[in-house]
């Protein structure tokens, strides 16, 4: 069984009368690149702050590396955080920011590590540029370097590609994949599913403070591929006919009238003919290909507004 590095149980956060997160249950396994998808204001940053120990839960529990957390117990030591904007002193250079943080961590080889990380994030050629003169992308890259300084086991990144140009996005993506290959577990939030799908191995969709779905990369791709949406009189009667007469196994029963058939090699008229012959009335049949973004919007109930 995979080792659980992050485990959230019934996690709730309220600010005065406003509930920002409600009964969140979530697990992140060792080696995951876990993508947290949600619209702006869905509660992604709040959830990451709770995991990172920056804020306190109103109810529920955060377990990291198998231990329940409190803000003082030091389990968070093994996490690197980049939540919202990178925490950087604008009047210092990138190197000075890293060296200052290495003092806080008590790293004896802080200078060396800083140089290595600057090299890794592509900022070594900016030795005298102050952070206030950095572009958004450079700040994000330095933020990742800061989060990596203490060699964490888990890296928590909140919207790491925000404000980056296409080259910057590709660079960050390459870096994250490389870090994951070296054994680092990543928890990344984003509102851009398309981009997240290029790196993440598991996903959770968060909407209005609630996790509405968790799924693997395979689940997501199968749901977003081409499919036939079939509306029949009785899905329970249709399913055995599809299996017996058309040898279809890759389908899902959505409700008592609806089935999704993922195997689109079968022709529509063959399906209709088989069902009618089996005595099942067909109300409608549509072939549909859904983009990742459409899927996300559909799940969060914002698809119609988006299409309009």
């Amino acid at each position, binding site marked *: 069984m995979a080792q659980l590095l992050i485990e959230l149980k019934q996690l709730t956060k309220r600010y005065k009368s406003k509930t920002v997160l409600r009964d969140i249950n979530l697990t992140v396994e060792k080696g995951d690149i876990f993508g947290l998808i949600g619209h702006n204001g869905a509660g992604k940053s709040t959830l990451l702050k709770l995991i*990172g120990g920056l804020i306190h839960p109103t109810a529920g529990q955060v377990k990291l590396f198998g231990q329940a957390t409190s803000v*003082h117990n030091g389990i968070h*030591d093994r996490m690197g955080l980049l*939540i919202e904007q990178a*925490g950087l*002193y604008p009047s210092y250079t990138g190197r000075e920011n890293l060296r200052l943080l290495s*003092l806080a961590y008590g790293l004896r080889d802080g200078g060396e590590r800083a140089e290595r990380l600057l090299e890794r994030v592509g900022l070594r050629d900016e030795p005298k540029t102050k952070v206030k003169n950095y572009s958004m992308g450079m700040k994000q890259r330095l933020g990742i370097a*800061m989060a990596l300084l203490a060699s964490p086991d888990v890296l928590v990144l909140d919207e790491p590609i925000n404000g980056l140009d296409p080259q910057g996005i590709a660079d960050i993506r390459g870096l994250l994949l490389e870090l994951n290959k070296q054994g680092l577990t990543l928890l990344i939030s984003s509102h851009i599913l398309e981009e997240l799908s290029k790196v993440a191995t598991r996903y959770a969709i968060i909407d209005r403070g609630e996790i509405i779905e968790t799924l693997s990369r395979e689940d997501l791709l199968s749901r977003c591929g081409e499919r036939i949406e079939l509306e029949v009189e009785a899905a329970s009667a249709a399913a055995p006919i599809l299996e017996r007469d058309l040898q279809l196994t890759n389908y899902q029963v959505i409700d008592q009238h609806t089935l999704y058939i993922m195997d689109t090699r079968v022709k529509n008229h063959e399906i209709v003919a088989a069902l009618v012959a089996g005595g099942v009335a067909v109300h409608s049949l549509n072939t549909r290909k859904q983009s990742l973004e459409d899927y996300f919007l559909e799940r969060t109930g914002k698809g119609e507004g988006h299409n309009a």
Partner: protein
Amino acid sequence: MLNLLRMDLRRLVGNKLTIALLFIYCLFHLFAIFMMAENPTPPMNGMTLVEMEEWQFLQHTSSIASSWVLIYLSVFTVYFYMSEYQAGFYKNYLSMRRARIYSVLSKLTVQGVFTLALLATVVLCDVVGRYFFLDNGTFGDPGLFLRVLGIQFLLHWAFSALILVVVIITRQLLTGVIVGIVCSFNLPGMALTALESLIGLPPISSYFLVHEIVNYKDYADLGNTLHAVLVGAVSLLLFTAIALYMKSKEDLR
């Protein structure tokens, strides 16, 4: 704790504002002594400015409201805390064990170092200013001077802890500075003193931190010394405890 302190001390030393504050204070203080020499006031506590020894002069300048030392301390405390808070740098290390507690203790230690540096600047300027403008190069009793310096250090450090509590709670730069300025005029102390005389309250204002700082007292007297140490130590402990509590309960941005 020591690692965070090293980081904060690096910021303190590498910060141009620290040097600038001390330098500007130095100029203002020398100018103030020059003006005192040009416009002599009637004798206070039976002696003129020229006759005062350093420990008395230090007491005298501290007791002039508004206290510039308190204003400078407020500005420094607010700036040092808020610059980290606004930059969000704390997010990088707050995941460490007991980081919230150690961070507050580290900030308080740095404030103590700055308080000491500020008082050392005051003494240095006093010595130079008195020598040049008041023709008084004598230092006086070193034991008594160290006692007064120690008391003033404790009281001023406790005051910086009060300002730290204010900025931790309000998270606002301006509020911290305004509270510092209001306190430097001893307005709360004066209001309480007025209430005491109006409605016959017991003299609780004498236990107020800022009231203790801006009132000239003869610290050659052991009773006054003990009173000041008690007020300073209790205030420092109280404000430290509040700062630690508030920080550990704080939801950070």
